[in-house]
């Protein structure tokens, strides 16, 4: 069996959100830790797409930032191509590692420098990593990259504000591809875009994956987009992975009650006038997560055990994992 390109092993990230030192002393306020990611494990095979879905505050963007090294893990390890990534980012080979892992951000209005031309933006990683040093060759390479995302030489000297949202997101993709990475972390790459433009960007991303054998971590809150893009899907709730399964299995037979709820919550296009099954309750405060299974206050199948005991991660023969007492006891 070949080694997965990316492995996350029990990764966790805690943020210190304590009040300032003086307030802690004078008002006797305690230290506060927010656990944004709590023991998440997954593998991503080469050339495959793992999607992470969940609602705001579930920790999916934090996972993305942990994988590219924007945050250090509080616990657990990230292995990239068998090597410890955390150590790699601090070693002398950090530059080489960064070249292989790139990221596309959600908001193309915020992730491009408004004072730089497209040539500067897409060319920077090339010169920063000393991949291309000669000026003419650099320009040629930038044009080549722009063409791969459907832009062209005429766009070289234009500034980000002269482009629409979809075109800007394509510029970010070209920038991410400049270093010929193997692994792309895409954090909600199309949620700021209109549907017709979203289709253009998703198609380009799929084409590039097929042509270059890219591996994606695709973060989204949109189940339909996830279904279109992914090979495997992980569902997160309050910092934990509650279900991880091959796409087909997850959409055909969702097992965790939260996954079912997310799927039921999607408006059905073809059956007009049909109301969705509304879910009760809201996502709890991550500073004070519920005991046991964190989903139990909203879960229709919860019992006393769910409130008391955190469900263990259980993997079946097909490699699909779920953390739910009801599923494991056969109640669901």
């Amino acid at each position: 069996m070949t080694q997965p390109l990316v492995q996350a092993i029990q990764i966790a990230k805690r943020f210190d959100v304590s009040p300032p030192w003086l307030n802690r002393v004078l008002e006797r306020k305690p230290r506060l830790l927010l656990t944004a990611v709590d023991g998440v494990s997954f593998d991503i095979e080469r050339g495959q797409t793992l999607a992470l879905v969940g609602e705001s505050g579930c920790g999916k963007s934090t996972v993305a930032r942990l994988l590219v090294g924007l945050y250090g893990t509080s616990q657990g390890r990230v292995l990239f191509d068998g090597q410890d990534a955390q150590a790699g980012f601090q070693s002398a080979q950090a530059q080489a590692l960064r070249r292989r892992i790139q990221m596309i951000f959600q908001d193309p209005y915020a992730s491009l420098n408004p004072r730089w031309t497209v040539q500067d933006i897409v060319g920077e990683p090339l010169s920063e990593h000393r991949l291309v040093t000669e000026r003419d060759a650099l320009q040629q390479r930038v044009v080549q990259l722009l063409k791969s995302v459907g832009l062209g030489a005429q766009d070289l000297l234009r500034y980000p504000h002269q482009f629409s949202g979809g075109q800007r997101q394509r510029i970010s993709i070209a920038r991410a591809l400049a270093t010929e990475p193997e692994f792309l972390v895409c954090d909600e790459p199309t949620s700021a875009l209109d549907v017709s433009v979203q289709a253009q960007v998703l198609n380009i991303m799929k084409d590039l994956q097929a042509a270059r054998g890219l591996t994606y971590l695709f973060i989204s809150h949109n189940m339909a987009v996830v279904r279109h893009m992914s090979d495997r899907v992980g569902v997160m709730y309050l910092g934990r992975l509650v279900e991880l399964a091959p796409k087909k299995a997850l959409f055909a037979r969702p097992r965790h009650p939260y996954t079912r709820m997310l799927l039921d919550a999607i408006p059905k296009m073809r059956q007009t006038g049909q109301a969705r099954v509304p879910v009760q309750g809201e996502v709890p405060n991550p500073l004070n997560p519920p005991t046991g299974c964190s989903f139990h206050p909203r879960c229709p199948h919860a019992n006393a055990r769910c409130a008391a005991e955190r469900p263990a991660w259980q993997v079946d023969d097909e490699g699909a994992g779920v953390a739910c007492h009801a599923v494991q006891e056969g109640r669901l």
Partner: protein
Amino acid sequence: MSLLQVRNLVVEFPSRHGVLRALDQVSFDIAPGEILGVVGESGAGKSLTGAAIIGLLEPPGRIAAGEVWLQGERIDNLSQQQLRPLRGRKIGAIFQDPLTSLNPLYTVGQQLVETIRTHLPMSNSSARARAIALLEETGIPAAAQRIDHYPHQFSGGMRQRVVIALALAAEPVLIVADEPTTALDVSIQAQIIGLLKRLCRDHGAAVMLITHDMGVIAETCDRVAVMYAGRVAEIGPVHRVINQPAHPYTRGLMAAIPDIDSERERLYQIDGAMPRLNAIPSGCAFHPRCPQAFERCGLERPELTAGGAGQAACWLALEGRM
């Protein structure tokens, strides 16, 4: 008899580079109690249509032509002073971000009581009782206590419930809801849409629901208007527009949405982007992106013909070529 009639509405923004026409001859009706969806991509003019109806156009934007009639009364030419009693009393508004539509310095109760007493002859205590009843109706638990809380003490979904209570406070006949669920998570979205639909039915209010989400339109609306480049491209019963779209833009839009129930290798894509206001194409505004465009499309603008169950402003449909 229509509740709201919008006739050939034109909104313009004078700028240094000439006058930009953001809305161009927009016409539609809303019947009492009806839910009309207005859908389109960013820049299509859907929010602007809502703002023009409520009289909340930001200067220098102005209504350059056309008429808006509410219950047989013309409201597009009223002064701000004449509009004040109308807003809230006749037309309620719900905006995308519940945090910016609530005043952070007043409790939810103070804001509700103020709105109720502005429009209805009520004492302070009966207005407060009504406010609590409204909050209960919108599904806020322990409404009698929560009424004295400030907006920041509510979660996003709960805040949007408060905004809905505010919009309904004076029993308006029309509610303009501009992307009411876009800022919310999907699980909360279903709760809010269900609530909005139920409350408007109970209170007999018609709704103009502005959104970019076809799924929300499909489950909520009676009729839908699809907007493109400041014009209505297609309007009709929601079932017909979604299942048999007549305008190529609507068809493209529907095909571009990833479907949760089926799998396709590639998504259909409409090439190009919505034109900028200073470069609206001649004839049909969609013709440069339209796969079926022919000569006439670039020369003459197709009209949305009045009357009938549903229409599309498209020469293919008008000439019966489809």
